[in-house]
């Protein structure tokens, strides 16, 4: 099994699609860093001056009129019908601060989780695609039949292929995520704010990265199973696209309550350690009124983790069962 896995890994790495996929990942990584670099650019001297001017104008306005406005507002407040809003909320005219004008600096601890999370998407996509083609091509070319005349133990063959796809993507994902993490840090360190990067922040970021490595490996294994089941790369991609559009898009929009049972939200909950989603909740009041609210809900990390684990196990077992029984032509 270990020997077979090594052979499969060698084959995975020798494939052209793998090379193309890796080049694509490399390109996306570079683009992401370039985009971060542009986003983190501080304002030019002229823009900075303009922001300063605006601040000064606003401050001057505040100094001159705040007192007057407040008095006026308090008078208005007295005439408000009950229940009245709080006076402090209604009539606070706070002093403008320079930081409210111009562009706030990029803060590493704030942008990094989203960047890692976004990277986990394209890593998972690439892994799925390459995994699907890794097995799909074997079936569509018929090479699997020849392979089985050398190693007829199907479950070993199956296990070695999935293991190769999954483990092959561990270093790939780790390197991509590390490059994005360190690259972004270096950029923001120059252009923005990294001072708030405490040990805990690093710990959280590494945890997100680590979980993104796990999802990438899972995506590679799942892609392989789907490639095996459908025997064609193109068919596997078609199925995923159809799922994304129909289930995650259309279905989730019409049946918001189903979101916790769709892959994407669980994926998010796992990678980000809890994820938020929204459902519309409508109530009819005792007075006959009917009102709908947009309510935020949280899907827990544990839910996401269990969901992904069970989903993967079920799909892998299904693939194994099918491959074990399948007639190979």
């Amino acid at each position, binding site marked *: 099994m270990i020997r077979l896995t090594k052979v499969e890994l060698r084959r995975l790495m020798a494939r052209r699609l793998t090379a193309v996929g890796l080049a694509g990942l490399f390109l996306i990584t570079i683009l992401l860093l370039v985009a971060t670099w542009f986003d983190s650019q501080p304002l030019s001297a002229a823009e900075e001056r303009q922001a300063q001017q605006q601040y000064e104008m606003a401050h001057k306005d505040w100094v001159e009129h705040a007192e007057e406005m407040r008095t006026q507002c308090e008078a208005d407040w007295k005439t408000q019908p009950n229940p009245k809003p709080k006076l402090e909320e209604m009539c606070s005219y706070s002093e403008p601060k320079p930081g409210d004008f111009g562009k706030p600096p990029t803060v590493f601890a704030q942008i990094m989780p989203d960047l890692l999370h976004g990277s986990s998407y394209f890593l998972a996509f690439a892994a799925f695609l390459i995994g699907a083609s890794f097995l799909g091509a074997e079936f569509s070319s018929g090479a699997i039949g020849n*392979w089985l*005349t050398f190693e007829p*133990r199907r479950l070993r063959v199956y296990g070695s292929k999935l293991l190769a796809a999954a483990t092959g993507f561990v270093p790939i994902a780790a390197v991509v995520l590390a490059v994005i993490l360190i690259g972004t840090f270096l950029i923001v360190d120059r252009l923005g704010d990294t001072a708030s990067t405490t040990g805990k922040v690093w710990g959280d970021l590494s945890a997100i990265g680590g979980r993104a490595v796990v999802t990438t490996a899972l995506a590679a294994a799942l892609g392989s199973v789907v490639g095996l089941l459908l025997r064609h790369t193109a068919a596997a991609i078609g199925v995923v696209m159809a799922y994304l559009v129909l289930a995650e898009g259309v279905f989730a929009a019409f049946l918001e309550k189903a979101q916790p049972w769709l892959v994407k939200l669980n994926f998010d909950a796992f990678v980000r350690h809890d994820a938020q989603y929204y459902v519309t909740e409508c109530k009819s009041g005792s007075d006959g009124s009917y009102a709908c609210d947009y309510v935020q809900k949280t899907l827990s990390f544990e839910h996401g983790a269990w969901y992904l684990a069970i989903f993967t196990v079920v799909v892998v077992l299904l693939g194994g069962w099918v491959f074990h029984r399948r007639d190979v032509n």
Partner: protein
Amino acid sequence: MSDVAISTRGLRKTYRTRRGRKVVAVQGLDLEVPSGGVHGFLGPNGSGKTTSIRMLLGLVRADAGTMTVFGRPVPAQLPEVVGRIGAIVESPKFFPAFTGQKNLELLAEAIGAPRARVGEVLERTSLGERGKDRFRAYSLGMKQRLAIAATLLKEPDLLIFDEPTNGLDPAGIREIRETMRALGEQGKTVLVSSHILAEVEQVADTVSIIGHGRLLASGTVAEVIGGGTAPTVKVAVNNHEAATRILTAAGMTVRADGNYLLVEGAPDPADVTRRLAHQELYVSELAPVRADLESVFLELTEGEGL
């Protein structure tokens, strides 16, 4: 080594087509392939040869029946004997984007064969330098040779070739035939399936003929062709009438065939010449007419509605 390389009993396979229709590909096949030498596995297209071979190799599940290879029940104990079996089922299939060499290296590594073996088998099948080309770019003959090279990675005792000459040019056909002959002479068992009778006749020591997934006949080529009866001889002689009279009187059956007479039932062709010469009729040509596999085959399959 047991003296039977392959045996099947009551082997059966029904495919379900996409529309749900059932196709009986093999129905109760009893096949026995003796150890050593070349065994022809003959049958028209669609008679179930490939399906039978796939079942032996564990690629397709049999619905019923038992199979053994070198005395081991398969597919249950296939992992123990698979190292002794080299098989090419239908056309050779490898990873098209990899070179021949890379394909062999992966296979060698999978079975734990030393990597040096790859170069060796490429040389032995005269692929040599072409091993560095992509499999996709190979001619059919080269693909076939690569597939043979792959089987040689295992040093097999049993080689299974499924219609190996399909689509090859005459030189390629001869090459394959010589390879099979040579392997048979080295004491290996070669099972070669074909729908072309002439081809098998030239290399096979023993044959099995199947039709509609059933065994129709099997034995040595001579047994199957001769069917035990005395051979027919074709005779050229001046006076057909007199010759017919003389030979019929001697208990032989005579039919006219153009300028020749076909004589059946002569214990020995020399009998024919001797009896005619006694009556001053001189034979200008005499040749035994061998019933070839073609006619045997047609005869056997006639009742099968093929």
